């Protein structure tokens, strides 16, 4: 995104947040559209759909006045959405513009095993400055995602994830529930202090390692990579101290997430789901983070129609869904109860920003045909100088 476009988009986002009366207005809806990962346009090479992804360090504003350094595909968190048809031949050119190692794992896809993106198992890591070409056929149908599989604990919460949607002309879910619109929500959780310290530590370590690599000096013990388990055990018996013993990394504690995002943003900058009375919408839920989420929709029972991308044989209704790390789920919401309804984690520790409620992954289902008079506030609110619902409340 060019700087001017970014500034314009940011201004729209800010305007939408602080002038809630415009929630149903055109500007607000346009700003909201930016909060979903836009599908990436492929380049056709014969019958192959070719996508270009690069990874770089990027600053992400999770909420106004709070920025963090992230690892971002194509300078956005989440990365761009890859959307193809079932059976398409797909090629992804992945360029590493950072000084860290990376891979891409295609989570839920049935790719050839050498394309699975697990470092030292299916491929060598994609090292700084390198480009790796992933090729596979898009299978199976459904909601999936991609993420880095190097230093996964850090790299995923640093932003290296994106949705991968495989469509099917004979989509059984659309046949059963003829929805008109769909949304993708990618959930994550971030210990921003762990992230910052570990990212710095990794960058420092990699500067040393790149120096050695440049001079062709690979030392298995220093790089902590061995040919086999037997070789590793033998090295330990001869006095080698593995990293987990000397704790060569900076943070010595497991991360405790303190920011919870949907599509890279926390409340009040999370996206809204727009719907109309009697409309069906499909929502693709992806948990790319390390925390479980118990997503609850007010005022509705939604249909669970797919689990890990697979259509469920018999959709069922509920109003709270458990979304484990690595899980995807598709739900259908029926526009049956006009209003503005919150959709949030019922483990309300995740509805916080740095410990302060409300925040985190709180978002709203908004009926866009809601009459203005229904959003009017009472006299007390008017005395406070407020206009109409829903307001941005940052400290309850």
């Amino acid at each position, binding site marked *: 995104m060019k700087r001017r476009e970014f500034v314009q988009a940011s201004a729209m986002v800010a305007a939408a947040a602080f002038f809630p009366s415009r929630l149903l207005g055109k500007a607000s809806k346009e700003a909201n559209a930016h909060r979903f990962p836009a599908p990436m346009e492929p380049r056709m090479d014969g019958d192959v759909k070719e996508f270009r992804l690069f990874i770089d360090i990027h*600053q992400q504003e999770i909420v106004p006045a709070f920025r963090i350094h992230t690892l971002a595909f194509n300078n956005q968190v989440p990365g761009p959405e890859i959307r193809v048809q079932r059976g398409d031949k797909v090629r992804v050119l992945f360029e590493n513009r950072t000084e860290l190692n990376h891979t891409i794992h295609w989570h839920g896809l049935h790719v050839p095993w050498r394309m699975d993106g697990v470092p030292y198992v299916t491929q060598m890591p994609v090292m700084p400055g390198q480009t790796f070409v992933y090729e596979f056929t898009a299978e199976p149908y459904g909601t999936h995602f991609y993420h880095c599989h190097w230093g996964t604990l850090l790299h995923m919460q640093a932003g290296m994830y994106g949705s991968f949607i495989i469509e099917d002309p004979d989509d059984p879910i659309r046949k059963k529930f003829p929805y008109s619109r769909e949304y993708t929500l990618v959930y994550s959780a971030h210990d921003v202090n762990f992230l*910052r310290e570990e990212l710095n530590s990794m960058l420092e370590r990699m500067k040393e390692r790149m120096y050695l690599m440049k001079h062709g000096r690979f030392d298995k013990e220093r790089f902590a990579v061995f040919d086999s388990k037997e070789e590793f055990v033998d090295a330990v018996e001869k006095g080698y101290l593995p990293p987990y013993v000397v704790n060569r990394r900076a943070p010595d504690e497991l991360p405790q997430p303190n920011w919870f995002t949907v599509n890279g943003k926390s409340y009040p900058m999370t996206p809204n789901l727009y719907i109309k009375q009697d409309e069906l919408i499909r929502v693709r839920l992806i948990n790319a983070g390390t925390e479980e989420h118990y997503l609850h929709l007010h005022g509705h029972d939604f249909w669970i129609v797919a689990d890990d991308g697979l259509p469920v044989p018999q959709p069922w209704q509920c109003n709270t869904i458990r979304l484990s790390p690595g899980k995807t789920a598709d739900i259908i919401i029926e526009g049956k109860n006009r209003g503005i309804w919150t959709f949030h984690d019922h483990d309300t520790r995740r509805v916080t920003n740095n410990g302060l409620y409300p925040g985190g992954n709180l978002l709203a289902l908004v009926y866009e045909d809601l009459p203005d008079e229904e959003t009017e506030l009472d006299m007390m609110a008017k005395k406070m100088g407020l206009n109409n619902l829903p307001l941005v409340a940052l400290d309850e």
Partner: protein
Amino acid sequence: MNFRKLLTVLLALGTAVPAVLGQVKPEIQLGARGVMSFNANVVSGESTTAVNDFSDTGILLGFRQKLYNLFRGQLVIGMQFPDAESDLGQVFFHQTFIKVEDQKNVLKMGRTRVRSALIEFPTLRDDDALLFTDVLNPFSNGENTEDNQYGNVIELAHVFAQRYWVRIHGEHFTESPEPPATSETDFSLNAIGVSFEYRVPETQIWNRPFVQQLGVGFNNFLANREGGANRANQVLKNVIVSAILNLRPDPVYFWDARGQVIYNVGFDEVKTLAGWRDMARARSVAAFASLRFLYRKLERPTLQAALSLGYKTFPELLEKTRQTQIVANLFYRLGENFDAVFQIQHIQFEGSLRALYGRRETRIQFGFVYSIDQSWNRQFDDRESLLNLEHGYIP
């Protein structure tokens, strides 16, 4: 409302307000360094030993947080065990300062390390070669080395392009009381200085392979000079020049060299050395240089060996006066931040210095050093982290 009632209300408010508002937890930093050595000294042929020398052992406690704008505030309190004969008591509070900083400016106020040197050298204790490595405090009686290292400081630094530092500093250096007085009563400004430094941040050591540091500093003591015609010629001027060069910037076998020269312009009338004050006020040139080898096995220091040489001359004295020093040491890491250490140093005095220090002194030390640097509630990044230096600064 009478005074007692008012006091009661104020006290109640004082305890209630923080409880209601709560507060952002500050970042808490803890630094500690224990230096224990067995010493064997031979001074002009006479030998003595110290079973346990724990001088330079100290602890630092820091608190840091973001302010309401782009600035950060910090409070540091530290104490140290000084040399046994220092006359400073059992414990010396060497650091008590507040720092306010943003990306490019740093303001420091309080008692802290004075800018009497531009770089540090690889010796066991900070003051092992103080006669060569630091501008000497002309107000001290030389009873201890802390008078030269710590003072009441106000310093403003500005950073250009991440690695160019300009510092303006004013100090009150400790003035040893003239008997019968037993303590200082005047804490006014008695030194001012400026320095300019090119310094590669430590995190980028592998990016900038050769020159790590170049610096020049000017220290001026507002001295009381007998017969000084005006204020200007009562100022004792010192010039410091320093450099650190990476000879072999290898992550495993690392070699570097560093050197510093201090030119003390001095006062013409000082022709003999009757004591510390003369030594600090006589014209002199002091040079100190170190060659260091560092072996880092698994991305952590494993072994460090250093050889340092010092030479100092007093060209304006009636008697040819000079001193030389050699320091060699070896640190071997036994565990995270825990080192076994051996050091030998020899210093030789000529001319007027012999009456003060004897002909020569040799000191052999072996012991252990344990240092930690921990922080809790970390909430923001350091100015010189790689993320802030190379990927945009986040306040």
